[in-house]
């Protein structure tokens, strides 16, 4: 269906900044408080009140700008975006329009095929969030909750550089990783702390001119971003191929029906009548301030991934996964620091494999993991010193997770210590061979595949505890030795 068409996507990501108070008032920003308990006279836009800029929000915006190699504006200006809506108490939103605080940056995003693509970031600007209209449980009335009104947002606007829904998701995930690294946004998408609008258009391959775009509003999960874009692309292509034209409009994604629907056309769009907010002075940012913020920058995801690959010999993919969050990277590094860099690959496999899967399954954040890095290292040591096999280790890990005991205690209690006594293994092999004369004959007749059958039988008889390397070696001798005879 997509043959002959190129998809063009740009994202406007809204990241709620993790300040304690609102961007222009002293109210708290804590999520989930009873309606209107975190809205003071400024948030309620009472007559006579004035906004005062929260410096922490500016600092966070600058931090983000530095992390994407952007230009930090020495002078940026807050403007009023005028429109009427009940959850917008002033009748205007304070935002930045012509002079944003952050301009022209970029971000490298790793795609599924392992290649790296640079996505341009046009700008990032500060603005205040609106409140919420509540309809549930109110007969013939609409409630207004202004707790969220005035919460600081950083709107991150990309260039139209993405060419598929997957690229868009990869970019959004990268921004998500970055803002959490920088500790400027909690990234909580359920609570709306991180969401985006997607501008989507298609054009015939090879054509330079962009097609007419539709803007899909308020996407609050990676899956919705992907599905909404896919739907929208298919809709536009189908429309164009059947001789229709795409109209510039704002659309909403309905996740229940998996479709986008028109919200308002360009003609119906508001004229926001932007003008500089006379209640706020321009934000002046000087070099010393920028340097002060730069000094607070942590190791960034790309830097961390490069270091993991270089110092621990990890693949680009593994290094990317392990640096996707600060916490995951820290956990991995803690394990490697005890276990030794020579076993980094083993540590990486376990952190990305068993550990990540139980965390996912039980919906636990890694920083709250019931198996901490030193406990996991305790288990991995028993693999490296051949006390247990990798397979048994998975069983031990599951017990560690559920029982909260150290690896050694579980290995001892359950008698899972690997059998490395050659005599003991030989005895079991002899028993297995004796019990399976038919298979023995077939094997010796050339059915090499049956080697696996014998390994399985011995493992079964030893409850998986036989040292696999020893078992292989001894079994080969026993089966082959007889053949020779």
């Amino acid at each position: 269906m997509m043959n002959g068409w190129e998809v063009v996507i740009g994202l406007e990501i809204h990241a709620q900044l993790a300040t304690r108070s609102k961007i222009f008032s002293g109210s708290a920003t804590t999520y989930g408080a009873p309606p209107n308990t975190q809205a003071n006279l400024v948030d309620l836009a009472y007559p006579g009140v004035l906004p005062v800029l929260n410096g922490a929000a500016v600092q966070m915006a600058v931090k983000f700008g530095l992390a994407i190699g952007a230009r930090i504006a020495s002078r940026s200006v807050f403007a009023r975006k005028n429109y009427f809506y009940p959850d917008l108490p002033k009748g205007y939103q304070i935002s930045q329009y012509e002079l944003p605080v952050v301009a022209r940056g970029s971000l490298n995003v790793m795609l599924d095929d392992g290649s790296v693509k640079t996505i341009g970031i046009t700008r990032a600007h500060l603005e205040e969030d609106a409140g919420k209209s509540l309809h549930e449980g109110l007969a013939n009335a609409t409630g207004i909750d202004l707790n969220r009104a005035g919460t600081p947002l950083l709107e991150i606007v990309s260039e139209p550089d993405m060419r598929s829904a997957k690229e868009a998701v990869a970019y959004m995930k990268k921004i998500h990783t970055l803002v959490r690294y920088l500790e400027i946004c909690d990234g909580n998408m359920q609570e709306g702390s991180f969401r985006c609008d997607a501008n989507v258009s298609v054009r015939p391959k090879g054509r330079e001119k962009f097609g007419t775009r539709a803007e899909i509003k308020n996407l609050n999960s990676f899956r919705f971003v992907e599905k909404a874009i896919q739907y929208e692309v298919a809709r536009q292509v189908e429309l164009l191929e059947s001789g229709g034209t795409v109209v510039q409009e704002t659309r909403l994604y309905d996740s229940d029906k998996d479709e986008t629907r028109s919200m308002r056309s360009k003609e119906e769009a508001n004229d926001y009548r932007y003008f500089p907010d006379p209640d706020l002075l321009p934000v002046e940012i000087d070099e010393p301030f920028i340097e002060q913020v730069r000094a607070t920058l942590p190791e960034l995801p790309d830097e961390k991934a490069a270091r993991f690959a270089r110092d621990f010999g990890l693949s680009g993919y593994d290094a990317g996964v392990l640096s996707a969050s600060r916490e995951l990277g820290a956990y991995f590094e803690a394990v490697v620091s005890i276990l030794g860099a020579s076993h980094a690959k083993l540590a990486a496999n376990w952190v990305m494999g068993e550990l990540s899967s139980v965390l996912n399954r039980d919906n636990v954040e890694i920083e709250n993991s019931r198996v901490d890095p030193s406990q996991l290292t305790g288990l991995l040591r028993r693999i490296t010193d051949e006390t247990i096999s990798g397979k048994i280790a998975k069983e031990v890990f599951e017990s560690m997770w559920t029982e909260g005991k150290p690896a050694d205690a579980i290995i001892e209690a359950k008698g899972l210590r690997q059998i490395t006594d050659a005599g003991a293994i030989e005895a079991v092999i002899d028993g297995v061979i004796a019990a399976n004369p038919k298979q023995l004959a077939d094997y010796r007749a050339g059915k090499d595949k049956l080697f696996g059958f014998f390994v399985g039988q011995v493992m079964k008889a030893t409850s998986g505890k036989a040292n696999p390397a020893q078992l292989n070696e001894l079994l080969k001798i026993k089966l082959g030795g007889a053949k020779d005879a």
Partner: protein
Amino acid sequence: MLHNLFIAELAERLSKRQISSTELTRHFLDRIERLNPALNAFITLTAEGALQDAAAADLKLGKGERGPLLGIPLIHKDIFCTDGVRTSCGSRMLDNFVAPYDATVVTRLKAAGTVMLGKSNMDEFAMGSSNETSFYGPVRNPWDTSMVPGGSSGGSAAATAARFAPFATGTDTGGSIRQPAALTGVTGFKPTYGRVSRYGMIAFASSLDQAGVFARSAADAAAVLQVMAGFDPKDSTSVDVPVPDYPAALEAPLQGLKIGLLREFFEGLEARNASLIQDTLKVYRSLGAETVEVSLPSLPLSVPTYYVVAPAECSSNLSRFDGVRFGHRCQNPVDLMDLYKRSRGEGFGAEVKRRIMTGTYVLSAGYFDAYYLKAQKVRRLITDDFRAAFAKVDLVIGPTTPTPAFAIGAKVDDPVTMYLNDIYTIGANLAGLPGVSVPCGFVDELPVGLQLVGPHFAEAKLLNAAHQFQQATEWHKQAPGGYE
């Protein structure tokens, strides 16, 4: 009579316990009760609260506390939010609005021990030059009750002229302190933009609005400004520069002061007004000042510039009055749009609607550059003109208004003629400069105002020059007939 005494004289009697604040307050409340019905200078009287304030001040005075404003009654323009007291801004929109907090100006004057007698009448949302746009009816000029007192702070001006209080607060966006002060024969002082906090002052045009004071002398204005002025962290546009001792600056000799006569202010000025201004120059020269002519070539553009900038800002500032959280809400709205349209349609008067529409227009896509941006550029030119003038002179001088007070109803149907009344005052607002109007004579038995404008933060110099003029003249001591 008590009501003719100046603030320093009242403060002395209070501090010597020759009178009590309660007696003083009762005296003014009696006058208001007797004389205000002819003037309509108030929207809300707070007699009960005033007597409580006075009792509190008397208690402090009894304990030996002293202060230049302790126990002194005042009137607040109804644009300042006053905790627990209706704050209407002269509009039906806020007729039911009881402010839940005090404006910074109110807080500061309260802390100084003042006594609030009430809230004064004003043009609706401070939009007007005659006080005729008030939802509460026009204020009448005590010099001639068929005449307007000027606006928008017409109630504060008339009340000060009628000796209803020693002083009153006001706000000046395009002349709303200086113009009514001129028309009612009192001293009206507009400080530098950012000198006095705008927090709690209901916004008309945020980049122009500035709080100030009406009094019967520059010395009184200095004492009040001393309390009002200062940085306020709640107002990002207030400026953090030290507040000098204004009263201490009053007596400095004017020897060597360079005063610039604004050429543009005399073009089209009526001859009798012009000659009164010429007379003031003689006074200043006799005091040792030097007068030279200066020109502000861009100044004639100030009225059209103002009537782009101010409506633009007001159209946005007044969006919060939507019938949702406070203020007027229409009966039985059928849907959201109906709620907005009728609440605002019913709550706002004609002049406010005119300015909201003008402002919405000049900010609209396709018109923004031609109007709003252009106006900002002209505003810059006007500011530069003033700066160039202040490189040569210390202060500039001219008439406050083109004519004395005009009749109620005379200009109400002709907004452009009404707007031209502010032709001499608007420049100082566009440039953010301090200005003062002082009485300088009479034409047809109506007071005429002299305007002095200074560089940013030249309040002390302006008050000094105004005070020295008043030391040499008696114009500021004249009271309207029936209010002596």
